[in-house]
């Protein structure tokens, strides 16, 4: 079909709002934040150029380096523990065991609830006095293990970090669809060769679902480095900044009217995110978009 002159005007008009918003809220902010990161600025006064001083400052701040480490741990757990669990569940459900649809519905359920509501719920679960977790431990005779989960140095970060690892619904649904799309012929051939279901999953399903698994790992790891609500709500970075993450750090810097250091932290975050995306695509193939 030929594109007429009238079509061309239409295309331009139809693209205008989407592209304009995209430029204003995706492209411009990234450039802008990089610019601000090279200045000292409180948001009120005139910004003054300081070169890379802000970067030196934040990398000397133990709270920021702790935040980077926490984010990297978070991303690794998301990519290499959460997504593999999701892939395993997707494969198990692809054999359509009894009630698989109900399992799928329920696994996805936590994903439609806001991070802030889930965090409040888990604050109640971790609570030292009346929390569900300590209650369960006492119930099964392990009262020695009860503690103030979010207030103790050793347990605070694992608690904040780990509760969402088993919320796998989002990734499971993506991988499940990919697994469903694999042609039956492969399995029939393997069946004739006498391969067990386990072997089939390992040698047929996993390689053929690699594209969606890598996509999920990318999304999961990006989630890992842009976390905010959970930490903000559960610990606000404490105790002793042990649970701080990069977004919380840049938020606090911003609230303290230090826009330069806040923006420098944002640039580091974007940089780490890009490294993750590039790294995953380099090592695990290019099937992702």
């Amino acid at each position, binding site marked *: 079909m030929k594109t007429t002159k009238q079509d061309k005007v239409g295309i331009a008009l*139809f693209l205008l709002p989407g592209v304009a918003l995209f430029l204003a809220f995706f492209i411009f902010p990234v450039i802008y934040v990089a610019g601000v990161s090279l200045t000292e600025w409180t948001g009120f006064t005139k910004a003054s150029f300081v070169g890379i001083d802000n970067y030196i400052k934040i990398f000397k701040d133990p709270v920021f380096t702790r935040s980077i480490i926490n984010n990297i741990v978070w991303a690794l757990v998301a990519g290499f523990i959460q997504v593999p669990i999701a892939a395993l569940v997707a494969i198990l459900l692809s054999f359509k065991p009894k009630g698989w649809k109900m399992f799928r519905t329920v696994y996805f359920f936590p994903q439609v609830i806001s991070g*802030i509501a889930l965090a409040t*719920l888990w604050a109640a679960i971790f609570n030292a006095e*009346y929390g569900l977790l300590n209650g369960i431990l006492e119930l099964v005779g392990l009262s020695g293990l009860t503690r103030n989960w979010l207030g103790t140095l050793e347990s605070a970060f694992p608690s904040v970090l780990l509760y969402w690892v088993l919320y796998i619904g989002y990734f499971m*649904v*993506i991988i499940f669809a990919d697994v469903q799309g694999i042609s039956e012929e492969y399995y029939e051939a393997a069946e004739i060769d006498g391969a067990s279901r386990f072997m089939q999953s390992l040698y047929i399903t996993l390689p053929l679902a690699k594209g969606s698994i890598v996509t999920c790992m990318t999304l999961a790891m990006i989630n890992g480095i842009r976390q905010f609500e959970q930490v903000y709500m559960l610990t606000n970075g404490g105790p002793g900044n042990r649970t701080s993450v990069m977004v919380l750090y840049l938020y606090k810097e911003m609230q303290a009217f230090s826009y330069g250091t806040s923006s420098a932290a*944002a640039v580091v975050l*974007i940089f780490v995110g890009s490294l993750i995306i590039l790294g995953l695509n380099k090592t695990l193939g290019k099937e992702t978009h």
Partner: protein
Amino acid sequence: MVKSSKNFRLISVIGSILKWFFLIFLFVYALFPLIWLTISSLKTNAEFMASPFSLPETWQWGNYVKALTVSGIARMMFNSVVISVAATLLNVLITSMSAYAVSRFEFKGNNLLQMMFSAGVLVPLNALMVPYFILITRLKLDNTMLGLILVYTAIGIPISTFITTGFMRSIPRELEESAVIDGANFYVRFKSVILPLSRTGIVTAGTFQFLTCWNEFVYANLLTSSPEVRTVQLGIRYFTNQFSTDYVSMYAAIVISIVPSIIAYMLFQNQIISGLTSGAVKG
């Protein structure tokens, strides 16, 4: 021979037990905390403190009345509905327009545009607080619902364009061609051929967009300050102050805030799942 087949059966029984244990454990993990929260919201505070697992002696529906009156959640729900609905409608309108352009026409830079939109999914928006704050304050839209509507419309553009483009691309060319022969121009074809045929895709994108808006916290927190424009998610943050030690009423308020998400999920479950599968994989 007999022995090895026995072993094999044993392994498969153990495997099956492990499988069901695993699936059911994850099932309980996803559901039990929410059920616990709901049951707790119907107890008295004394009951809740004394025995976290028991059912309530009498169901305390009064907690919900208290939740509604103390928290001002009705107003927040209203704000959230207005903001989410407006941002969803605007978002699907804008993205179905751009999806129509990129999916049905060939022009210079088309691929680049599509790549750009898709890459937007990976931009860590939480890191852009400073620029968003400056942008919205300069536009004098800080502390307004309009400001949040604008931000929410924008942040959903990559994912909605992605989903809608996928659907529109699958519409056969012939349908549009016959409309051209009938003399339908660019806009008429969009309105009466493409839009009706990609309704499923648009509803899917809209469902995602609505959930994103309803659940958004970071920018509601950053860009608004007065109670008149407060959204539900922001409200949850203040519940701990408002209710102080009245935990059960606070839980009632949280349950109320979750209900719209659950309703959206129940109604559009198939759309959500098909959206994830069509959008994310086949990029």
